[in-house]
């Protein structure tokens, strides 16, 4: 048998093998269980409610809020600029472009953090990047951002600063708001208006 025929036979044999085996056994999950455990323990996927409030108010274009609750709940109330991707359809192709991308920062949220974390784990195992979870979920959001509690008078300065920010954020985002605790910056007095005389028109006509 010539070398050529051996090669032909080998190719044919490989073809028969590949026709018999199951197709595309590539694992859909990109992260191993160990890698996932390390990520979960690191808790780097959490973003705080204060950060998110700040991004919403400053209209950060890289922020994409994703509401993983049901459409009913989404219709009742949702955060500014959020899109609704219910957990049950998170794997559908329709939303893949939102979830598997390298430009925006997706922040998943639900009422608590259970659904958003479940969604995040699925997405992370698929190897998608830039997905995060709103720490504490909507419940915590309402307690802290929309209805912040004043800290006790003995609290550290940062607590007051945080409270003031939350108060202001609450005002900007439509929650109930009262005055801040720190003294407001005194407004500058109006400058005296300078009234300029209208310039005389240049003489018309002529040449």
């Amino acid at each position, binding site marked *: 048998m010539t070398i050529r025929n051996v090669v032909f036979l080998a190719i044919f044999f490989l073809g028969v093998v*590949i026709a018999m085996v199951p197709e595309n056994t590539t694992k859909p999950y990109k992260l191993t269980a160990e890698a996932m455990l390390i990520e979960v323990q690191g808790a780097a996927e959490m973003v705080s409610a204060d950060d998110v409030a700040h991004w919403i108010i400053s209209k950060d274009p890289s922020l994409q809020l994703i509401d993983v609750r049901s459409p009913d709940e989404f219709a009742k109330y949702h955060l500014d600029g959020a899109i609704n991707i219910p957990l049950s359809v998170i794997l559908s192709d329709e939303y893949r472009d939102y979830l598997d991308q390298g430009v925006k920062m997706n922040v998943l949220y639900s009422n608590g953090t259970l659904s958003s974390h479940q969604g995040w784990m699925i997405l992370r195992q698929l190897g998608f990047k830039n997905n995060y979870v709103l720490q504490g979920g909507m419940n915590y959001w309402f307690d802290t951002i929309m209805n912040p509690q004043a800290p006790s008078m003995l609290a550290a300065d940062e607590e007051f600063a945080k409270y003031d920010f939350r108060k202001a954020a609450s005002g900007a985002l439509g929650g109930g708001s009262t005055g801040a605790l720190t003294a407001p910056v005194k407004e500058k007095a109006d400058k005296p208006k300078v009234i300029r005389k209208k310039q005389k028109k240049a003489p018309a006509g002529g040449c």
Partner: protein
Amino acid sequence: MGPLVPQEIIGADWNLFIAFAIGIGFGFVLEQAGFSSSRKLAGMFYGYDTVVLKVFFTGAITAMLGLLFFSLFGWIDLNLVYVNPTFLGSAIVGGIIMGAGFIIGGFCPGTSVCAAAIGKIDAMVFIGGIFLGIFFFAEGFPLIKDFYMSGDFGPMKVSELLGISGGLMALLVIIAALVMFKFGELAEKKWPREEY
């Protein structure tokens, strides 16, 4: 783990460099196989030389088997491999025009560059023709745009269209290739040409 560039295992900046290295290798193989002779390519159509068929089909089969086995071993995710979208109408007409160009010119775009590199004047003229064709195609594109986009099947695979597995499709292609090789060699015996 693969494909390496879309998975960012190799940075996208390396893309062009890798393409350059592969291109050099491709040109080297074409020259080694004697494809810089326009008689070689024309021989395919007259039946006296079917090396072109054998080289390209062997290349296609090797790549096909390689991808399928890599996928089987979990080394590459075929869903991430780019599949050219099919525009049926323009593919058929384009194929006919390109085939006619092969017979008339005796080169395909790749072999013309090889032949020009070793100083063949007809190949240089051929490359000039390619650029003229590109120019007129680009300038005239608005006229043929509707036809160009017709028969859009998207990134279609024949195996999906027939509803068979990729592996079975591969076996069919291999059988077809081996049969074609056999017929090619019969043709070479039937219409031999000594002088080229």
